[in-house]
């Protein structure tokens, strides 16, 4: 009973604080920070106790919550990213509205990580969509409004498909619970997965993501890439764990997304777009091994938001070519270096542990492809690692452009990246360390071999608005075929 | 029989959406909707017993259609038809006709339903359609007036909803009959909503601005039928539930006096007509048993008057005294004014006699004073100077206007037959005396006095504030 009250209090708190900010706008930062820190505490308690809580509110038609280690990791990611973003914005002139929306976004993503029935999830995802819309449109420029509108449009259409799937699940089970997917007809699974794939930015359905994440303001990008897309990914992971038959489907999409994301990211010449595309690839890693998705999500969230804050808030330019010609402040470079190494899976950083854990749990058929993906990741992040960096006069001028809260947020995230090693200390064996280093070196060699020579621009036609919507129908057919083929056998 | 009723309720909405699909046929389709209602109303009069419909189960929609609703439906149909004729040659778009027929349909639904939720839906739809019609010219003023109307009526409907759920709590049904067992606060809240929506007593003071600032055909629709959608349920409740009968009658007397008081001193034609609507709604409520017939005559007359007022050269009575109007228009004006004053030969006479017969003793004096006030205020129209002159509007729009007049004034004369028993010597003398007295008072007193009332109470904030006072008064009335 105590746990129940505790959990409900934790879910409700961000919303209460968010509305509290409107009442007492002076305290906006403190309220926001407090809300995020409470989530950190709650997540740590979940991770330490390693218990699983299942709550059924009202009756069997009501809200179902499941909280275990997996959700603990996701919640921790969400909370740490939120703290970093708030620290980053601490000395900027963001209004109370911004903090309130951040907190509401945080709360709704939390709720998505806690619930285990389709309707609560729907509500959580829609609320997060609206809050994300408001945050993306915060600068009120035409471009930001368009990007936000596009995001809301795509995600809302996807959620409509999801709703149809949800009612089909209800029809066969008389309940909206996740485990009803077992008895649900294939079209229900296809529709629900379509919604979640789009919302989570996975595989080709996720091609709305590069524009949205790159054109949003830096802290918002960090929040979106670090935490919000995981609200769509988490239910996929949860379903894969609950329903045996869906596990292969999720894994296939994981592999596909990991490859497509890395491929696009490598040929991208804009820092923020590259990071956004790499998010697609990393989400693939999360899905590739659902059992251990939590740790990967945590390290990716920390690494990616650190990189977004660096690329958008501290680099003098967004263009790689320009960055090659100027040199960056070594301290800023260090931040990018550590975060990039972590995502590439370099030992000493938690990215290594997460990657090792995921690789352990891959099925045989995934093994080779994901190794290729790992090399691809190393290639992509070599772009950041080999940026020129030297102390120069011009650098001091650049430093003025660095956002005031940047160092605080960066230190916080990097410390988190190192500390998260503790979750899987067993990864440090000679074989695994050797493999990781070999992958990275291979990636760097490939980087030098390819980038220095090839000039290649991928067409962006697929990212057009109509195509994003159109792709949904194709994905629906593919999904239906996949699920139907599985259940048919 | 049931299918016919359901088809009739849905037909206007269907036609309305059809207008959006086939905009060329806008006028024809709208008129068709009005004619369907008209023939349905006639069919209802021919039925020996009321039509009772219970859709789905006892929690579902209930409809009761009897002679009372027949009168209201007929009013609605005739006024709509007249308005469509009036607009026939103007360049109103398909949107206008579609909204007209949708408002017609929603009012029909309000006249048919006998449960609080169906009524709520019908009233809200009519409110939205009325808003769109008021805001049709897209000028700042029209949008403000429309917004004000929508805001006031929506706040009132929120109170109403609270009342409706209290009724449900007490009786597990939303039927009107449940008011019997409902707690006093439920009745107070529901009546609050209906009084505001129907424009009765002080809660109706949003009405003068809204009805006077709208375009003439929209005013005609609003004054002729839309307010009756709020009045009809009051009448119906008074008939169904014994206890609320005195309350309804009391409000009838109050609003009849209040409206006529304002109307007598008003210097603007359309505002005078709007205030007078408040007063006439009182006559409908004063004798719920025969409210239907009064509603019919008032609807016909008031919409005729609003349409005529748009053809007058000015809205100001002072200016009208100096500018003679063309004689044909003056004749139409006089017929309508005579009818509303209760002059024999016109249906207003029959309605007034019928209402007077059904008054309770304590109401008689009040209502006679109100009748006198009506005569005084319409003397302003009757004694306008007139001369034979060419009308300024182009002939084609005038044709539409006269067609509308034929429908409305012809209806007034034809409606005499409903209650021809009224023509006894005693009954005829009394209204003549009243009218004579009224004219005398007009000539000797009111033509000279200029009193200007402050319009403070018509301000938006006060309109909303008055609601709280009214709910207290209502609660107290129901409790005692």
């Amino acid at each position: 009973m105590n746990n129940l009250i505790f959990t409900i209090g934790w879910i409700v708190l961000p919303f209460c604080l968010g509305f509290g900010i409107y009442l007492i706008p002076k305290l906006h930062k403190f309220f926001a920070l407090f809300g995020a820190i409470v989530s950190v505490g709650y997540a740590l308690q979940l991770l330490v106790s390693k218990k699983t809580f299942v709550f059924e509110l009202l009756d069997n038609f009501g809200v179902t919550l499941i909280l275990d280690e997996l959700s603990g990791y996701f919640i921790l990611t969400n909370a740490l990213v939120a703290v970093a973003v708030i620290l980053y914005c601490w000395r900027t002139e963001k209004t109370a509205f911004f903090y309130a929306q951040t907190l509401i976004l945080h709360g709704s993503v939390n709720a998505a990580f806690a619930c285990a029935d389709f309707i609560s999830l729907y509500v959580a995802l829609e609320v997060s969509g609206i809050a994300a819309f408001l945050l993306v449109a915060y600068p009120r420029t035409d471009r930001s409004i368009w990007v936000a509108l596009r995001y809301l449009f795509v995600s809302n259409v996807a959620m409509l498909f999801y709703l149809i799937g949800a009612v089909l699940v209800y029809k066969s089970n008389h309940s909206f619970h996740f485990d009803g997917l077992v008895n649900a007809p294939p079209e229900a699974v296809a529709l629900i997965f379509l919604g979640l794939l789009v919302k989570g930015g996975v595989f080709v359905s996720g091609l709305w993501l590069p524009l949205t994440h790159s054109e949003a303001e830096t802290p918002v990008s960090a929040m979106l890439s670090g935490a919000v897309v995981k609200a769509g990914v988490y239910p996929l992971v949860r379903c894969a764990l609950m329903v045996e038959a869906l596990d292969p489907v999720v894994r296939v999409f994981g592999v596909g997304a990991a490859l497509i994301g890395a491929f696009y990211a490598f040929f991208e010449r804009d820092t923020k777009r590259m990071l956004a595309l790499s998010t697609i690839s990393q989400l693939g890693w999360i899905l590739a091994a659902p059992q251990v998705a939590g740790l990967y999500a945590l390290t990716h969230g920390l690494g990616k938001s650190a990189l977004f804050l660096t690329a958008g808030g501290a680099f003098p330019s967004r263009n790689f070519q320009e960055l090659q010609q100027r040199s960056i402040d070594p301290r800023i470079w260090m931040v990018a270096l550590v975060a990039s190494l972590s995502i590439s899976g370099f030992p000493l950083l938690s990215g290594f542990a997460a990657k090792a854990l995921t690789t352990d749990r891959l099925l045989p058929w995934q093994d080779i492809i994901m190794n290729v993906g790992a090399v691809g990741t190393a290639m992509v992040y070599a772009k950041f690692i080999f940026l020129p960096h030297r102390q120069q006069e011009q650098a001091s001028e650049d430093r003025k452009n660095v956002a005031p809260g940047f160092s605080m947020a960066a230190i916080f995230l990097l410390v988190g990246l190192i500390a998260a090693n503790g979750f899987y200390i067993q990864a440090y064996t000679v074989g695994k360390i050797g493999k990781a280093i070999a992958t990275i070196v291979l990636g760097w060699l490939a980087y030098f071999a390819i980038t220095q020579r090839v000039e290649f621009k991928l067409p962006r036609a697929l990212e057009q608005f109509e195509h994003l919507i159109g792709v949904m129908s194709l994905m629906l057919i593919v999904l239906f075929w996949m699920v139907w083929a599985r259940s048919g056998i | 029989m049931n299918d016919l009723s359901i088809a009739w309720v849905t037909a206007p909405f269907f036609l309305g959406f059809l207008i959006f699909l086939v905009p060329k046929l806008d006028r024809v389709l709208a008129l068709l909707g009005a004619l369907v209602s008209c023939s349905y109303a006639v069919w209802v009069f021919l039925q020996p017993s009321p039509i009772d419909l219970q859709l789905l189960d006892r929690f579902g929609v209930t409809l009761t259609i009897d002679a009372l609703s027949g009168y209201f439906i007929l009013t609605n149909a005739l006024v709509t038809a007249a308005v469509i004729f009036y607009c026939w040659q103007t360049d109103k778009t398909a949107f206008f006709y579609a909204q007209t027929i949708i408002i017609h349909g929603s009012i029909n639904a309000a006249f048919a339903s006998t449960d609080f939720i169906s009524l709520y839906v019908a009233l809200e739809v009519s409110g939205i359609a009325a808003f769109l019609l008021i805001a049709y010219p897209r000028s700042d003023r029209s949008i403000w007036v429309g917004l004000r109307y929508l805001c006031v009526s929506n706040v009132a409907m929120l109170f109403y909803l609270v009342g409706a759920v209290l009724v449900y709590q007490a009786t597990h049904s939303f039927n009107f009959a449940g008011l019997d067992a409902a707690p006093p606060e439920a009745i107070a809240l529901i009546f609050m909503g209906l009084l505001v929506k129907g424009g009765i007593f002080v809660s109706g003071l949003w009405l003068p601005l809204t009805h006077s600032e709208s375009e003439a055909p929209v005013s005609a629709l609003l004054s002729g039928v839309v307010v009756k959608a709020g009045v009809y349920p009051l009448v119906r409740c008074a008939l169904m539930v014994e206890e609320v009968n005195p309350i309804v009658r009391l409000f009838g007397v109050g609003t009849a006096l209040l409206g006529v008081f304002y109307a007598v001193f008003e210097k603007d034609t359309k505002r005078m007509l709007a205030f007078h609507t408040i007063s006439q709604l009182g006559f409908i409520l004063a004798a719920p048993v025969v409210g239907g017939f009064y509603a019919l005559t008032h609807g016909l007359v008031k919409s005729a008057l609003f349409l005529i007022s748009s053809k007058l050269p000015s809205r100001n009575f002072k200016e009208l005294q100096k500018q003679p109007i063309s004689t044909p228009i003056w004749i139409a004006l006089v017929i309508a004014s005579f009818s509303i004053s209760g002059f024999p030969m016109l249906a207003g006479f029959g309605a007034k006699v019928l209402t007077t017969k059904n008054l309770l003793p304590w109401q008689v004096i009040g209502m006679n004073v109100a009748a006198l006030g009506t005569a005084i205020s319409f003397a302003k129209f009757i004694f306008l100077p007139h001369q034979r002159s060419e009308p300024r509007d182009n002939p084609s729009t005038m044709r539409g206007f006269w067609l509308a007049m034929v429908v409305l004034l012809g209806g007034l004369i034809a409606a005499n037959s409903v209650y021809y028993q009224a023509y006894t010597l005693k009954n005829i003398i009394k209204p003549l005396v009243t009218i004579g007295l009224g004219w005398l008072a007009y000539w000797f007193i009111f033509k000279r006095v200029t009193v200007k009332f402050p319009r403070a109470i018509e301000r938006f904030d006060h309109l909303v504030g008055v609601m709280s006072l009214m709910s207290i008064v209502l609660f107290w009335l129901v409790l005692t």
Partner: protein
Amino acid sequence: MFLEACVLATTLCGFFGIVLKKNLVMKIVAMDVMSTGVIAYYVLIASRDGLFTPILDGDQTVAYADPVPQAVILTAIVIGFSIQALMLVAVMKLSRDNPTLESHEIEKNNTP
């Protein structure tokens, strides 16, 4: 079965409207059509077993409608409504600089 086909046809109509219509407002309207279809589908599934209110009335058993999907879809209606309002506000802002509201044009002007 026939009703189900109608409902799904509505949903698809809305979906193709989103893809094929050029104007942003029309796209939003099409989205509303699509969500109307979805809502109708919930109501349809709720009424599969019957139409009556599921409240006991004496001993008689009636073919009653399932209240859960209906209750649930209310949330979706409200959410859909608010999202639509939000989108229309955004469109209003965009229309100042892009009076035609063609999504291609807006996209061209606002993609880096």
